């Protein structure tokens, strides 16, 4: 049937984006591919239940989100995660500030330009992806759940079994690490 064929084509087209989305959450190529595979199969099986109210790709992403959450729970159950306590000191963050809480001279943030222009630059995304990979696993997971999947910190805490305060500490550190990493990679390239 024409419609089915059309959807199959759209699934093939969106697959790479599904994989990189899953990879940012799961931090494991094989598990990310598996979650996407399951989501694609599920999307084809449930093809008839797709209502035209949302876009087709949005609907498929929605299915993938559940598969990712399942896979994350499994990772955690199998003891593959470091403890999620945000209470320890973080050297990488402390290096950005002086003892008195002011920015270190070489860590002071500079302008990244207008967001619209920045987002159109493909190099920015290469730096962004590299910096996501460089994040510690837990920081990357919590950041992905919050900013990519768009869950509230309340939901994340329920999902991961941590206190909300802890979640905020982890996100604060993740953002500081990301910004320092992106600034290094992004602005250096801008001024050769």
């Amino acid at each position: 049937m024409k419609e089915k064929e059309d959807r199959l084509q759209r699934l093939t087209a969106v697959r790479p984006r599904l994989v990189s989305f899953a990879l940012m959450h799961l931090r494991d190529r094989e598990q990310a591919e598996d979650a996407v595979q399951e989501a694609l199969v599920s999307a084809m099986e449930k093809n008839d239940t797709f209502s035209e109210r949302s876009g087709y790709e949005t609907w498929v992403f929605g299915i993938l989100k559940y598969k990712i959450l399942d896979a994350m729970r499994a990772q955690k159950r199998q003891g593959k995660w470091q403890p999620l306590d945000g209470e320890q000191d973080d050297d990488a963050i402390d290096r950005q500030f002086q003892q008195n809480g002011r920015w270190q001279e070489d860590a002071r943030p500079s302008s990244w330009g207008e967001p619209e222009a920045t987002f159109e630059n493909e190099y920015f995304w290469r730096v962004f992806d590299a910096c996501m990979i460089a994040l510690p696993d837990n920081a990357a997971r919590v950041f992905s759940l919050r900013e990519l999947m768009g869950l509230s910190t309340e939901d994340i805490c329920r999902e991961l079994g941590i206190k909300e305060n802890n979640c905020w500490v982890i996100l604060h550190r993740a953002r500081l690490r990301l910004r320092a990493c992106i600034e290094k990679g992004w602005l250096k390239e801008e001024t050769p």
Partner: protein
Amino acid sequence: MMCKEATRLMSLKQDRTLTFQERLSLRLHLTMCSACRECDRQFTLLHKAGRRFDPEDDDDGP
């Protein structure tokens, strides 16, 4: 309030509504500190960057 603490509030702002007191102290700090103003923009940009996976299949706006 120093810059490190200010970045905590900037981060928090992306996740929940700040209290009146928090908003006030952050705003005061930002008027005095250009580095923190950039950091605030960067956190907001990171937040927006997270939406790049949102499929744009049928609606034109956010």
